[in-house]
C-alpha cells in the first residue's frame, strides 16, 4: 500500500516535471519566434521609413519640377530643383483655399540665403523671403521640405541677368481621418 502511494507520487512528480519542461520549451520557442518576427518587423519598418523619405523627396522634387513652379529653360539650360520666383508669386494670387493642388494642405517657400522674414506681395517683390502659396485651415501631417534654387530675372544699369538664391520648399499634406 505504502509502496503504491510512493510509486504514485513519483509518477506525479515525473508528469509535473514533463509538463513544466514542455511549457518551458514552448515558452522558449515562442520567444525565439517573436525575436525573429521582431527582426522582420524592424526591417519592414526600416524599409517603410526609407520609402517615406524617398516619397517626401520625390513629392517636393515633383512639385519643384512641375510646370507651375519650375524654371524650365528660362535661366540658361535646364536646372534641377529650380523654382521660378515670378511664377510662384503669380500662382500665390491664383490659388484659393479650396483649390486642390497635388493633394497638399500647405505649400510654402522660404528664402534661406539671403534670409528675409517678410511675406512676399506684389509691392515688396523681390525684397521678401516667404511665399505662402496655399494654406488650408485643416489638420496637416508633419511638414516635408527640401532645398531649391529660387531664380528670377534681375536688372542692373547695364544688363539683365539671372539671380538664383537658396530657398526651402515646405509642403504638408492634409491629415486623413482613419
Amino acid at each position, binding site marked *: 500500500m505504502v509502496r503504491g502511494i*510512493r510509486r504514485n507520487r513519483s509518477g506525479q512528480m515525473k508528469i509535473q516535471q514533463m509538463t513544466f519542461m514542455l511549457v518551458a520549451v514552448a515558452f522558449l520557442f515562442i520567444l525565439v519566434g517573436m525575436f525573429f518576427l521582431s527582426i522582420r*518587423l524592424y526591417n519592414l519598418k526600416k524599409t517603410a521609413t526609407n520609402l517615406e*523619405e524617398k516619397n*517626401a*523627396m520625390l513629392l517636393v522634387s515633383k512639385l519643384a519640377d512641375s510646370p507651375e513652379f519650375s524654371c524650365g529653360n528660362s535661366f540658361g539650360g535646364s536646372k534641377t530643383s529650380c523654382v521660378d520666383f515670378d511664377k510662384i508669386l503669380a500662382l500665390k494670387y491664383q490659388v484659393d483655399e479650396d483649390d486642390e493642388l497635388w493633394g497638399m494642405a500647405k505649400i510654402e517657400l522660404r528664402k534661406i540665403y539671403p534670409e528675409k522674414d517678410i511675406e512676399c506681395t506684389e509691392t515688396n517683390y523681390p525684397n521678401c523671403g516667404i511665399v505662402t502659396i496655399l494654406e488650408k485651415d485643416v489638420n496637416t501631417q*508633419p511638414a516635408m521640405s*527640401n532645398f531649391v534654387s529660387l531664380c528670377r530675372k534681375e536688372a542692373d544699369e547695364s544688363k539683365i*541677368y*539671372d539671380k*538664383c538664391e537658396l530657398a526651402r520648399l515646405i509642403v504638408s499634406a492634409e491629415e486623413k481621418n482613419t
Partner: protein
Amino acid sequence: MNKIIGKKAQEEMVGFVVIVVVVSVILLVLLGFLLRSPEKSAVENYEVESFILSALQYTSDCENQLEFLSIEDLIVACERKEMCLEEKDSCEILNDTLKDMVKDAWNINKQSAVKGYNLEIKVEGEEKLILKEGNETSNYKGAFQDFAKRGTEYIVYLNVYY
C-alpha cells in the same frame, strides 16, 4: 536512493528554469530594442544632397565680363585664380558666400537639432576648401556632388552632424 534521484531531478529542473529565465530576459531586452520605432532623423540625406545642388546654382556677387557667376562657376574661377570685376578675389567671395550660406541653412545652436557641419571642396582629389563648424558627432548625414569643367574634376562634400 529515491530521494537522491528526486533531488537530482529537482536540481536539473532549477537549472533549466534559470537558463530559460536568463534567455527570456535577454530576448525580451533585444525585442524591446528592436520594436522601438525608428525615430525620424533630424537631417535627411536628400536634404543635404539638394542643398549642395541648390548651393551650386546660387548666383554670387562675383561678376565677370558676361554675367554674375554661380557658385559652381566660382569654384572653377577660384581654382583658375581668376579675378572678378572690380578686382575682387574669386576665392575670397567663394569662401565668404559659402560660409554664410551653410551657416544660414544649417543653423547650429543649442535649440537646433544640427550640431555641426563639414563642407569640403576637392579639385582633382586635392582639398581646396574646408568649412567646419560645431561638433562632429557620431550621427551624421552626408552627400556629395561632382562636376567636371575644362578637364578638371571638382567634388563638393557636405556632412551635417546632429
